[in-house]
C-alpha cells in the first residue's frame, strides 16, 4: 500500500468516536486534553480512553477496509471456522469476518482463552486434516497461545494463526496499545513454528497468507504464524489498488527416494521377524489403509506408539500390547514417523542381543530446528529415508510385492499365523487385566472404558482424548479402525490441551454426525474450563466424562518417587499435587457454563445409566458432562 495514501485514522479512534455517541464521520478531538485534566482516581479511566484513541486523527467512514481483502484471501483458502478470543489488534479482521464475510466460512467460534483457541485448532486439524483460522493479539494473546502452539508443533499438526500488531509507532494509541505492540511479533514462537511473516502491504499479505497455508500443510505439517498489521486491516483500500489473490498450489508430500525404498523393501522381505513401529504414520485415513496393506504384504507385526490411529486395534498383526516382546524378536525394525525412537530401540537392545537392522522413514529428517529438543535423542539407522511415511508407503508396498517369492510367502504366512495367535492371547490377557478392580470405588479406568464401549460400539464414534492417563484402556478394549477413532496425544505433553482439543475435534466431527467422546483428566480440565461455555454456546455435541482422580496424578507419583529415593516418607506428597479440600464440583461447574451434567459417580453400577443419558444428549446435539470418581490411572 502506498504510504502517501495512508488514511489518517485508525480503528481505535473510529470506535472511540462511535462509542462516545459522536458522529463517527466527523473529526474527533485528540483525547490528550481529557487525560491531562483527569483528577487523581480517574487515571484508570483516562488511560483506557487514551488506549483506545489515536494520537491525532481525523475520523471518517471506511467502506473498503484492508481486512475485507484479507477475508477474501482467507475464504480462498477454505477455512470453515475462526477460533478466537476477541482482541483489539485484530478487531478489523473480526469485523470483516462477521459482517463482510457474513460469519460463514469462516464462522467465528468464540473462545475464552487463546490457549483454548489453538488447542481447539489442534484437535480440529487432527480430525479434519486441515487447519482452521485462528487469531490472537500479537503480544498478550500470543503469549497465552504459545504453549498450545508448542503442543501442535511437537504433534506435527498444522495450525494457522494470525496475530494483530501495530508496527508503526506513530500510529499506536495510548498506553495499552503500546503495551500490545511489538517489533517482531512472531519472534516469541519462531522456534516452534514452521514459518512466519509480517506483510507490509495487502498484496504481500495475500501471497504470504497463501504461502503460509501451503507450508503448514506440507509434511511435516506444522504451525505457521502470520502478522496482520492494524494499519493494513483498518486502512481504506485505494480505489486504484489492483490486488490479486494467488492460487493455492498444494505441495505433493515428499516420498522416499526410489533406490532407498527398494533397499528397504529388500531388508523387510528378507527378514525373519520384521516389525513396523509407527508413531504418526497415518496422516490421513489413507495412511491406515496403506499400513494395513504393508503389514499384510509382509505379514509383519505392527507396534504402535498411539500418537494417531495408525492401525486397527483388533487386527491380528497388531502387537502394540506386547511391544517389548515383539521388538525383542525383531531382526528388522521399520520405524515410521516415530517419537522417542531411541528409547524404544534401547529398551529392545537391553532385552536381547539379537542382531538388528533399522530402517526409518520420517519427515522429521526433512525439517528440524535447534532450540527446543522435541526431535528426541539420536538413534542410528542402517537406512534412513527422509520422507513422509504415508506418501512413501505405496512405493514401498509395490517394491515388497515385487520381491516376494513363493518361499518367502510361505514363511510370511507362517509368521502371520503365529502373530495372530499372539495377538489373540494378548487380548485375553487384557480382558483379564480389565477384570481386576472391576467393582472398585473409586471406579477403575478399565471399567469406565468397558461400560462406555458397550454403549458406543454401534455408533459412529470418535474418541478425542489423550489416553495415557487412562492407562490406554479405550485403545485396549475398543475396536478402533477408523482414522478418527483416536487422534493421539498432546504432542508436547503440555497440560491444558485436553478439553479444548476435544471441543475442536467435536466441531470437526459435528458435520459428519459423529459421536465425540472425551475422557477428560481433571487437572487438565481446570486449565481452561471456559471451553465448555464455547461448546454450549455453539451447540457442539460431545460427551465429556471426567477422569476425576482428584489430583495431578502424574506429579503425585513423581513427588512420591523423589521423596522415597530420599527416604523421607511420602506423607506430605499431597502438598501441591492433590485437588481436594475442597473437591471440585465438575457437574456444577459445567451447569454454570450452560452444559447439562451429572455426577460425581462413585459406584460403577451407576455408569451405564449415566452414559445412556449422556450419549442421548450428545446425539441430540448438545454437550454433556458426567463426573466420575476414578482410580489414579
Amino acid at each position: 500500500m502506498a504510504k502517501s495514501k495512508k488514511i489518517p485514522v485508525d480503528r481505535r479512534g473510529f470506535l472511540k468516536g462511535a462509542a462516545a455517541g459522536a458522529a463517527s464521520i466527523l473529526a474527533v478531538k485528540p483525547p490528550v486534553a481529557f487525560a491531562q485534566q483527569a483528577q487523581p482516581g480517574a487515571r484508570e479511566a483516562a488511560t483506557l480512553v487514551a488506549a483506545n484513541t489515536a494520537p491525532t486523527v481525523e475520523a471518517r467512514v471506511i467502506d473498503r477496509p484492508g481486512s475485507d481483502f484479507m477475508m477474501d484471501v482467507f475464504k480462498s483458502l477454505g477455512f470453515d471456522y475462526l477460533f478466537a478470543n476477541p482482541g483489539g489488534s485484530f478487531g478489523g479482521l473480526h469485523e470483516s469476518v462477521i459482517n463482510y464475510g457474513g460469519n460463514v466460512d469462516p464462522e467465528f467460534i468464540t473462545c475464552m482463552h487463546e490457549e483454548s483457541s489453538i488447542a481447539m485448532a489442534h484437535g480440529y486439524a487432527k480430525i479434519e486434516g486441515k487447519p482452521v483460522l485462528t487469531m490472537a493479539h500479537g503480544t498478550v494473546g500470543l503469549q497465552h497461545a504459545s504453549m498450545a502452539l508448542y503442543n501442535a508443533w511437537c504433534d506435527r499438526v498444522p495450525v494457522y494463526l494470525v496475530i494483530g500488531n501495530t508496527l508503526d509507532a506513530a500510529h499506536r494509541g495510548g498506553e495499552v496499545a503500546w503495551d500490545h505492540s511489538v517489533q517482531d511479533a512472531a519472534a516469541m514462537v519462531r522456534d516452534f513454528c514452521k514459518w512466519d511473516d509480517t506483510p507490509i502491504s495487502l498484496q504481500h499479505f495475500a501471497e504470504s497468507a497463501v504461502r503460509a497455508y501451503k507450508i503448514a500443510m506440507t509434511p511435516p505439517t506444522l504451525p505457521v504464524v502470520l502478522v496482520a498489521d492494524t494499519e493494513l486491516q483498518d486502512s481504506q483500500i485505494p480505489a486504484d489498488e489492483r490486488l490479486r489473490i494467488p492460487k493455492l498450489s498444494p505441495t505433493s508430500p515428499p516420498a522416499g527416494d526410489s533406490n532407498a525404498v527398494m533397499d528397504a523393501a529388500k531388508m523387510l522381505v528378507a527378514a525373519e521377524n520384521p516389525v513396523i513401529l509407527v508413531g504418526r504414520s497415518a496422516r490421513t485415513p489413507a495412511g491406515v489403509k496403506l499400513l494395513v496393506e504393508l503389514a499384510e504384504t509382509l505379514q509383519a507385526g505392527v507396534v504402535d506408539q498411539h500418537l494417531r490411529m495408525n492401525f486397527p486395534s483388533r487386527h491380528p498383526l497388531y502387537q502394540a500390547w506386547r511391544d517389548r516382546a515383539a521388538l525383542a524378536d525383531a531382526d528388522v525394525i521399520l520405524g515410521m514417523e516415530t517419537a522417542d525412537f531411541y528409547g524404544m530401540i534401547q529398551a529392545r537392545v537391553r532385552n536381547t542381543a539379537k542382531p538388528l537392522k533399522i530402517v526409518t522413514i520420517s519427515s522429521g529428517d526433512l525439517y528440524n530446528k535447534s532450540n527446543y529438543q522435541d526431535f528426541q535423542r539420536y538413534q542410528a539407522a542402517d537406512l534412513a529415508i527422509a520422507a513422509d511415511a504415508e506418501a512413501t508407503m505405496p512405493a514401498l508396498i509395490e517394491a515388497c510385492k515385487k520381491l516376494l517369492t513363493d518361499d518367502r510367502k510361505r514363511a510370511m504366512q507362517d509368521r502371520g499365523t503365529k502373530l495372530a495367535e499372539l495377538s489373540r492371547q494378548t487380548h485375553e490377557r487384557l480382558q483379564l487385566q480389565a477384570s481386576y478392580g472391576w467393582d472398585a470405588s473409586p471406579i477403575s479406568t478399565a471399567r469406565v472404558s468397558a461400560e462406555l464401549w458397550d454403549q458406543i460400539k454401534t455408533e459412529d464414534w470418535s474418541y478425542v482424548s489423550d489416553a495415557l492417563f487412562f492407562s490406554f484402556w479405550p485403545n485396549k478394549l475398543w475396536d478402533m479402525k477408523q482414522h478418527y477413532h483416536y487422534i493421539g496425544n498432546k504432542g508436547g505433553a503440555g497440560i491444558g490441551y485436553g478439553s479444548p482439543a476435544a471441543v475442536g475435534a467435536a466441531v470437526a466431527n459435528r458435520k459428519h454426525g459423529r459421536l465425540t467422546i472425551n475422557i477428560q483428566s481433571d487437572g487438565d480440565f481446570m486449565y481452561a474450563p471456559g471451553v465448555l461455555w464455547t461448546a454450549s454456546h455453539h451447540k457442539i455435541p460431545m460427551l465429556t466424562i471426567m477422569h476425576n482422580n482428584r489430583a495431578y496424578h502424574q506429579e503425585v507419583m513423581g513427588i512420591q518417587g523423589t521423596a522415597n529415593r530420599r527416604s523421607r516418607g511420602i506423607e506430605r506428597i499431597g502438598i501441591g499435587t492433590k485437588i481436594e479440600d475442597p473437591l471440585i464440583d465438575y457437574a456444577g461447574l459445567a451447569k454454570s457454563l450452560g452444559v447439562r451434567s451429572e455426577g460425581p459417580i462413585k459406584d460403577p453400577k451407576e455408569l451405564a445409566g449415566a452414559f445412556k443419558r449422556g450419549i442421548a444428549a450428545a446425539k441430540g446435539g448438545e454437550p454433556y458432562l458426567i463426573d466420575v470418581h476414578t482410580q489414579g490411572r
Partner: protein
Amino acid sequence: MKNLGFLFVVLAATVLAQDKAPAGNAENGKRLYMRNGCYECHGTVGQGAGANPIAPKLAPKPLALAALTAYIRKPAGGMPPYTSKVVADAEVADIRAYLLTIPEPPAVKSLPLLNQ
C-alpha cells in the same frame, strides 16, 4: 519404568510359593497401603495400572512376604525404593495382609462387557 512390570511379573511367577510368613494386620495394612501411596500406581485394590502395565497388579495372590520386602527395598525400573525408615518390615507384612483380603475378580467370561 517399563522394566518394572516385566521384572515384577517374573518375580511373582517364581516366588509365588506357599507363604509361611506372619499373617500381619490387614486393617492396618490397608491404612498403610493408602498412606504410603502404593495405591497411587497400583490402584486401591492392587489391580495395577498403566499402558502395559507400568505398575503391575499386586492382588489377589501377592508376592511372598520375603520377596515383596526384598523387592520394595530394591525395586527395578521406575518404582522408587521404600527403605525400612519409610516402611518397616512389620508394615510390609501388614500391607501384604491387606492384599490377601482382596478377592479374585469375577471371571472374564461372566462379564459381558469384556466379551464384545
